[in-house]
């Protein structure tokens, strides 16, 4: 797992730099939540929501591949913006618990205004 995480951080940073320009990925992590969700998340700097719109398909493909590489099924992929701005600070691929399938990923609208939904498995 240690090797996969380090490699995935480098790969994500490299791919995003190829797409957008100067992107920094200071940290990636695999997490498990009390509700039952598990996920793969990357903190990043330099990415904006316009970039995410333009490269949505490619970012989805990269995130899917990287999350699978650490054992997380990418059922719900989203970007989190710095509230009130267009700066994207986290990309997350999440395998959802039953409650979050309905509560977090179940609305037609994005669950919150700072979340940009990139992929939702229906």
């Amino acid at each position, binding site marked *: 797992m240690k090797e996969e995480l380090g490699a995935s951080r480098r790969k994500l940073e490299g791919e995003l730099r190829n797409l957008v320009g100067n992107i920094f990925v200071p940290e990636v992590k695999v997490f498990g939540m009390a509700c039952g969700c598990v996920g793969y998340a990357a903190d990043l700097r330099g990415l904006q929501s316009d970039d995410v719109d333009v490269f949505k398909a490619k970012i989805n493909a990269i995130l899917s591949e990287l999350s699978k590489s650490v054992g997380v099924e990418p059922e719900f992929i989203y970007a989190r913006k710095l*509230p009130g*701005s267009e700066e994207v600070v986290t990309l997350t691929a999440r395998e959802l618990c039953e409650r979050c399938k309905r509560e977090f990923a179940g609305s037609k609208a994005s*669950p919150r205004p700072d979340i940009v939904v990139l992929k939702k498995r229906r």
Partner: protein
Amino acid sequence: MQLMIPHPGHFPALKEIIEVKEAEGLNEVGEVFMGGSPEVMGSGRGVLHAPLIDEIKAQTEYAHQHGIKMHIVMNSTCTGAHHLTFEGYKMFKWYFNELNKADVDGVIVAEPYLVELLREFPMKTIVSVLSYVESPQRAKFFEELGADVLTVDTNINRHFDVLKAIVKAVNCEVKLIVNEGCLYRCPFRYSHYNLASHLSSLNQPRFPLFAPDFYYDKCINIRLRDPTQITKSGWIRPEDLKEYEAIGINTFKLSGRTKAVNWIIDCMRSYSHRSFKGNLLELLDCPQLLRDMFYMDNDKFDGAIEHWKKCRKVCGECGYCNELTKEALTIIK
């Protein structure tokens, strides 16, 4: 009964909330509220969206088409005295004027100066829960400053004698927040909201914080060590709304504008139906985190309101909430 519903701020969320309200005939839902621009002022909660005036106007128009009133929250508890500068005065006056032109129905404020400033506009002046109205005396003060609606301090949600006295003392509308689970008489309350007010505005601390959510972390820790504190909080069960209507309070506000849309919709349903089955922590805006730690069986709280209505809140001599917590709360394995 009328319910005021939190709106996270993005237009699709408003549409979804209204769609459910109409599809399910939730006629009690009459108002929504959302944060304003953090460039003008922060608020008591995190701001996840920064709507410009044009967006507020469009959303207000949509809400009105569906018979819903739109209110904008500007309830920062600390502006760093910006409002008392000429620049601040002009900015707030300009912003209120723009909100008024956008046909907004009401503005929720905590700062007494802004309560008074709003008298110049036809929009409703809604005094925030963060004005800490907890007595008839303070209620009267705010009414005289110009309040049309008083959202009273949740610390007195179970002080029926004080609530009755407030209703009697003022002519304006008295509103209660029903699903805030803040610690009863929380020692961090003022500091926490001052911090949130700064962090949600452009008026940020000059240096990075080593503990950006210090008070929240303390609050969660206290409840983990002493879950009775959850029982003692001022939340109101959907089943108990009628007790408040009986003393003349008919408008209720749900807290939770930083939560997911579907969570807000679930809460809206429960309070509209005046009924909920399951873990009470699912309804509480804060401490939502603990719903994965504790299960508080809502049914076990049937009738507790009768005790709380006459409770003197001298916990050391009573022990009722301790016993109730033992009966109603289990730790989720």
